[in-house]
């Protein structure tokens, strides 16, 4: 079957295909994230890129996925996080089948996403009251992930005003483990404008901004590099990320522990790790206040307090 957002076979773009795809989606949740790539790779024409959309095809912009029409110039911009206007045909086409297909896949994606609220495909969080952890503890795990620290607003503030220099020299443990403000294994939430369902990325797995940006582009743009190889130039890992150099429609920003939204890339990586709370892939147009284009970055760096 075509279209497949789902490994359902995958498939191209027929209306029926998509429709079928979406119904398949709901039943094949667990298979998706792992199998998706494989089937895509084995299937076909570039139209199937629709599937990529699958992953991100939820609501909003109608899917900020990387591809559109067959082998078009979109491939040339594979480093870029695209928006709805990149593939009008897909959007309208989907719109025929509906909101339903989009929302269903959205739901499915929600199931796949690493959000703690969402359902995981394999069942742990689809079951009420399982694992057996007291509701209080469950809530505080959630809050550990999102609540601002009291100290950030209160005491922390007045101490920052003082000339605080780091206490005893700490051992190297911390340096490699990107334990961010949440102390939560280095996983931070990432949201992208136009996409209701967020993802999580493990900062521990990266040692520099490029690598992180690449991972995010992979995550939100396409499911796996193999897709890219279909009829288009392969995604170069060495290519500088469009997200970082300001040449994309989107920029990568982060919320620091003081609650301010900052442009990613200004401070040394380690300092970033210690202050990042979450990430947001923001539309450049909205980021004007904080994310000047590349050529302004140096100026910004000078004026921004570190």
């Amino acid at each position: 079957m075509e279209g497949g957002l789902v490994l359902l076979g995958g498939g191209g773009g027929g209306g029926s295909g998509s429709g079928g795809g979406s119904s398949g989606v709901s039943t094949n949740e667990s298979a998706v994230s792992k199998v998706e790539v494989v089937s895509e790779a084995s299937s076909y024409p570039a139209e199937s890129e629709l599937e990529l959309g699958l992953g991100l095809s939820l609501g909003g912009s109608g899917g900020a996925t990387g591809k559109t029409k067959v082998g078009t110039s979109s491939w040339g911009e594979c480093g870029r996080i695209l928006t709805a206007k990149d593939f009008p045909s897909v959007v309208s086409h989907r719109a025929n089948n509906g909101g339903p297909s989009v929302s269903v896949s959205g739901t499915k994606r929600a199931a796949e996403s690493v959000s703690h609220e969402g359902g995981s495909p394999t069942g742990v969080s689809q079951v009420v009251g399982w694992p057996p952890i007291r509701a209080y503890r469950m809530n505080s795990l959630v809050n550990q992930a999102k609540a601002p620290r009291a100290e950030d607003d209160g005491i922390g503030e007045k101490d920052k005003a003082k000339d605080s220099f780091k206490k005893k020299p700490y051992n190297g443990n911390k340096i490699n483990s990107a334990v961010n403000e949440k102390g939560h294994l280095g996983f931070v939430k990432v949201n992208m404008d136009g996409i209701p369902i967020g993802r999580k990325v493990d900062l521990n797995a990266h040692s520099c901004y490029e690598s992180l940006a690449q991972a995010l582009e992979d995550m939100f743009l396409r499911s796996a590099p193999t897709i890219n190889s279909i009829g288009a130039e392969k995604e170069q890992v060495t290519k500088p990320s469009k997200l970082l150099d300001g040449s994309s429609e989107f920029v990568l920003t982060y919320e620091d522990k003081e609650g301010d939204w900052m442009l990613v890339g200004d401070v040394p990586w380690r300092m970033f790790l210690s202050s990042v709370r979450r990430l947001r892939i923001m539309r450049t147009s909205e980021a004007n206040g904080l994310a000047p284009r590349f050529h302004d970055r140096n100026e910004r760096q000078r004026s921004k307090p570190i």
Partner: protein
Amino acid sequence: MESSEVNMSRDSSELDESARGSSSPDLALERVLSLLKSHRDRSSVSLVCKDWYNAERWSRTHVFIGNCYSVSPEIVARRFPKIRSVTLKGKPRFSDFNLVPQNWGADIHPWLVVFAAKYPFLEELRLKRMTISDESLEFLAVSFPNFKALSLLSCDGFSTDGLAIIATHCKNLTELDIQENGIDDKGGSWLSCFPESFTSLEALNFANLTSDINFDALERLVGRCKSMRVLKVNRSISLEQLQRLLVNALQLAELGTGSFSQELTFRQYEELESTLSSSKNIHTLSGLWEAKGLHLPALYPVCTHLTFLSLSYAPLQSGELAKLLAHCPQLRRLWVLDTVEDEGLEAVGSSCPLLEELRVFPADPFDEDIIHGVTEAGFVAVSYGCPRLHYVLYFCRQMTNAAVATIVQNCPDFTHFRLCIMDPGQPDYLTNEPMDEAFGAVVKTCTKLQRLSVSGLLTDLTFEYIGRYAKNLETLSVAFAGSSDWGMQCVLTGCPKLRKLEIRDCPFGNAALLSGLDKYESMRSLWMSACHVTMDGCRQLAREMPRLNVEVMKEDGSDDSEADKVYVYRSIAGPRRDAPPFVLTL
């Protein structure tokens, strides 16, 4: 305790306050019996003869009621005239996991009303899984002038306003212990309600409240309560504030540190270190919600005499834990998050030879992408290093039969074995077989086992093993396990000391339910949800066992004949009179 509940039923017909003997032998007996603290001992004593029964009831000052619906406050008050301390448990345990709808019951108020009349000198109230409103807290505060200790765990229905009333009115308060509750936290001003003249507080635990409190008020409170031995503050307290509190409370025995995080100057850090070094009495430490490896060394002096360390809200990494534990040779109880991973648990095994209890909680139970957490290797490592381990609660994502066999071989003294393999119905990940042999090994080897929670892919064989070997088992929790009625039957016919059985999502039906007819009156309760029990089966049970309360909760959209959630318990108080509409008493 259980036998004391049975006791109540036998002599409810004998209740006669005036039967108290006045001859000296009875008074002497009362004196002697007043030294008995254990409920089981007291129950045994009360069964000897009528005189002893009377002597016991007049000398008892603390009553423990494991199921608030098993007895009524009137019956309790009639039998025990001199109670000063009450411990009550309400809802079924699975309510902690949202399996029991709101407004199910277990309201403390009717109890308080009776107590106000019969026990005006009541001093202590400890509640678990009860509903208590702010009005009830107010009633409590004004009805009992001698009131001293309030402990609430897993309760709901109240807010910080209620705490404010307690703080304002209870002039003799020694203990205020607010644990993991469904509390409506409206703010921290309650703490400022303790009058300046108030100095009796010995234990204060507000670690699980989120709002900021007035630090000055707290500092003054701690400063003037010279007998304070337990202080567990919440996250809003910074390191610097903690130091200021400690410096005036060096007699503290139990400390909950708050966030334990802040940017400190060198001098501040030194002060903290110095104060902690002087806190030589601390044997229990918790909190550390945001502790960073950076500041943990300040705790080393405290670690030396630590026997209980709770890091269950502190996401430490393995290295940080290892460093800390190297300084904790006396540790008996340790609670951690699975962020410490197997490596962290190896450190447990090598640093804490006296360890008796380990609990490993999952930091992110739903995150499928996380391939962190602990595995069977960590548990095995602990078992090699800690032969005295007898209590474990372990959340993991993979386990093998062989690992569990090794573990119990190393630690045969388990009394509490609670293993949660988080993915329901997951087999031994190496052999793909069910986990039957793992739990078989547990029950065969650990003859003292009192509490068992099973998980993973399990067939009826697990339950055959349990029924055949677990002769001391009192509490069993089962989920997503078993193959047929036979499994549950094995347990019901095999475990002589079984008191609490809670089952969810298992293929046990009416035959299984009814096979326990002879058993349920000697048990506290049975819970079965999402099994194959029907309304007819429940009705039959209710018909044949009139002294049991058989309650069913149905879910929306389920078949009329299905009994979605069944709660069965013995009671001498008859059916509940306060059951909400969704609880059907058969």
